[in-house]
């Protein structure tokens, strides 16, 4: 399978999934190094960090819910 790769902070991150405007990214060289960013709806050329931990958890919840639903 082919996936998008983004260079962030001089590290390559694979796009694991995209849900709404959230992007779930994983360091190509370190599976444990992950982050979630969001596309800027006002400027599609930018990624934005999540606002806070609550949004981070919400994004994780979206991911797991989708994962479980698709594997039922």
């Amino acid at each position: 399978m082919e996936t998008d790769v983004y260079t962030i902070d001089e590290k390559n991150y694979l796009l694991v999934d995209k849900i709404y405007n959230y992007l779930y990214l994983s360091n190509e060289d370190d599976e444990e190094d992950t982050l979630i960013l969001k596309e800027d709806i006002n400027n599609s050329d930018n990624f934005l960090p999540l606002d806070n931990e609550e949004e981070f958890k919400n994004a994780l919840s979206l991911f797991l819910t989708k994962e479980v639903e698709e594997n039922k």
Partner: protein
Amino acid sequence: MENNNYNGLNVINPNRTRYEHMISNSTRQRNIPKQSGRSKKRKNKSSMLKRRLVFAGAAISLGAVSVNIIDAATKYFEEQKIVSNTLEEYNTIVKENTHVLTDENGKPIYNGTEVMFMIDTSNIGHWIADQLEQGENEAAVVYGVYSNLPASTEIENNFSDILDAANLSVDWAMENGYTGMNDKNLKKDVRQEYLDEYYNINSDEKKMGGI
């Protein structure tokens, strides 16, 4: 450490610190140009599955899911973890028993379109059979899928032992309620991964007829 409340029980989450970096990495204020350094890469399914599990594991550990999804998520998480580990294990066995045929100069021999390789099916078959004899070993679930890998040259070689074992493991998997083997793309993906990762062959090199 964090307190989560599941079904009225307070649970102190010892995994909290493990994910601090993930949280800070995601919420650190910065501006990231989306298009900088963007490219595409081919990755195998096993690799991507492991990465998905990190997110899934974080969601469960940090209590980022509602109580009613915990059971389903945990079941999914456990099943996928087994599959992921087994793919890695079988991958190693196949790699150890696969040898590229080379000419007198040590260069891989092509048959016109593909590099030619010899696979010791006996060793792989015996290994599969040993695993199956272990009965309740969940690893058998995915052997059938991965057995499709050496079967790519089935016509020229005798893979009956592997295919027999594969059929057994498919039956076993179905009887035990596993569904992950129904992915029709896996065989194709595995075969491509095999060529890309083990022998670093890309389409341009194939056209040139050598590495």
